[in-house]
């Protein structure tokens, strides 16, 4: 490892600029678009969770939405009193509990999949794909969870006097995005980040050096799941609607595309790509209709072949290089 890897991924000015610009959105956009932007930021947080698990630790998870949707459904059943009998109906109680349940599920699943001879690489991708399809089928078949209709009427987070004002929610989610970004960036710049890189590029040698590879893998998987579940729970509270689409294969594949398009190795690229793709979709899908998804799939395919490091990560890293070479 070169000494250069043990520093922040990007110079602080780039994320500061990105989050600073995002802080201006409510001034430029009306209430409707601010509310939409809140959702896009939550997808951005979701994308960071996959960037950690896949881009860093090398676990190609084809079912990351099981945690996003799991957190969302957890939030819905707790606040609606379907589970817990209303004891955890207060959103600020339900939120951490939903995240904890999703993380515990990830810990069990991770322990089952990774221990012993363990499942890796392409097998892991296919198995997580199957689990996502399975969970979506189970939710769609479960009348307690609203089946195909999902669960409606999830109460919003109590932020301020006017529950229809999206601005406080937007700044809460933006602050959360920045916090998660900064925390992950710190961790990845520390020796832990080096361990994760080694986990991706040469797990056998990492084990040989005395690291508990399985435990590191599970811990990363659980951390990713918790972040995804937090985003999902907040998404359901924002949308007041838990839909089976949030838990299944479709969203899992979508987040994979955002992260791959942006650049899976670079957290900020994954975060921005999710928000940007969703924004573009909101602007264009009305006029493009079915052509939008065709273009997205084609662009994804082309970027895997031609620009495997990602469409956003490549210019971001170039900028980072320029900034670092500036005379101080």
């Amino acid at each position, binding site marked *: 490892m070169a000494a250069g890897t043990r520093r922040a991924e990007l110079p602080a000015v780039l994320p500061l600029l990105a989050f600073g610009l995002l802080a201006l959105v409510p001034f430029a956009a009306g209430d409707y678009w601010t509310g939409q932007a809140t959702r896009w930021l939550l997808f951005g947080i979701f994308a960071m969770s996959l960037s950690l698990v896949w881009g860093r630790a090398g676990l190609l998870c084809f079912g990351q939405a099981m945690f996003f949707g799991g957190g969302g459904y957890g939030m819905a059943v707790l606040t609606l009193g379907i589970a817990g009998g209303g004891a955890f109906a207060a959103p600020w109680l339900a939120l951490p509990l939903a995240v904890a349940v999703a993380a515990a599920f990830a810990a069990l699943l991770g322990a089952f999949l990774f221990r012993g001879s363990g499942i890796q690489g392409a097998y892991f991708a296919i*198995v997580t794909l199957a689990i996502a399809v*399975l969970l979506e089928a189970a939710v769609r*078949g479960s009348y307690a969870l609203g089946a195909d209709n999902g669960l409606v009427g999830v109460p919003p987070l109590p932020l301020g006097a006017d529950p229809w004002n999206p601005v406080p929610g937007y700044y809460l989610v933006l602050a959360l995005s920045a916090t998660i970004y900064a925390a992950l960036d710190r961790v990845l710049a520390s020796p832990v980040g080096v361990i994760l890189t080694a986990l991706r590029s040469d797990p056998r040698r990492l084990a040989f050096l005395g690291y508990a590879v399985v435990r590191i893998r599970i811990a990363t998987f659980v951390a990713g799941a918790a972040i995804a579940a937090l985003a999902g729970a907040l998404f359901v509270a924002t949308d007041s609607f838990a839909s089976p689409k949030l838990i299944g294969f479709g969203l899992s594949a979508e987040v994979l595309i955002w992260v791959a398009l942006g650049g899976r190795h670079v957290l900020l690229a994954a975060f921005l790509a999710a928000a940007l793709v969703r924004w573009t979709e909101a602007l264009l899908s009305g006029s493009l209709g079915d052509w939008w998804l065709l273009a997205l*799939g084609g662009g994804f395919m082309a970027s895997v072949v031609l620009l495997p490091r990602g469409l956003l990560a490549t210019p971001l890293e170039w900028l980072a290089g320029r900034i670092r070479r500036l005379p101080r």
Partner: protein
Amino acid sequence: MAALLPPLLDILSIVLILVLVALGLVVVFGLMGVINMAHGEFFLLGAYGVFVLAGAGVPFVLAVPVTAAAVGLFGLVVEGLLIRHLLHRTLDTILATWGLSIVLKQAVTLVFGPASVSVALPFDANLTVGAFSYPGYRLVVMAVAVAVIAAVAWVYGRSGFGLSVRASIERPDMAAALGIDVRRVTRFGFAGGAALAALAGALVAPMVSVDPQMGLGYLVPAFLAILVGGAGLLSGVLGGSALVGGLDGALTLAVSPVVAQVIVFALAVIVIRLRPRGLFGGRD
């Protein structure tokens, strides 16, 4: 007995179709290290192929092989434009072929619309022997599937081309050194896999509702069948498909399709985890 036979035949037809889909997938993986997420869309193209040809008045007997051949040719194009650049970057092939799968699905949606279409049964007669009665078309499909599977087994195990394929899977460098054109073998292997998937789609089309999202419902069980069965090419595919398809079919009849899918997928994940080399794989 006569009452028991039709459900058993239903299950058998599910298994045979699964084998056809899984065969192409496993040959492509063995030859090229490519996990083809677009395999379900080759199946989809097969189904829409006979829909178009049957609509144009082409007889069904002709429409099926023409569709399979056309999708096989399309597979050659895909191999040349996309797969060739990603050989043995397994995880990247998952992403790229997933992108291809979206493109194909959307293209079909744009041309034919998102709603399901139906393909008329080429003939609507029942085979009746005493108390036993069964749709004739299903029996024909099963017979064709068995014949095709046997033909693939023969080509793979007995023919000169099959020998090149096996050599290219086991020891590509040595095969190349012995003068086998490994690139050509993999190209035709990929095209053959695509044609098999399209054939399965074409045969199934008159029996199910055909819609742009149908591919995934065949892709995931085929993956699971392969992983449960193990890498031994024919034994793995046949055994895995029999287990996954058989259990799915039996549970669908006994409980409901949703419960069947959940149980089969969960059991398959557990088996894959406990026996990563598969139940019938032996060596890797």
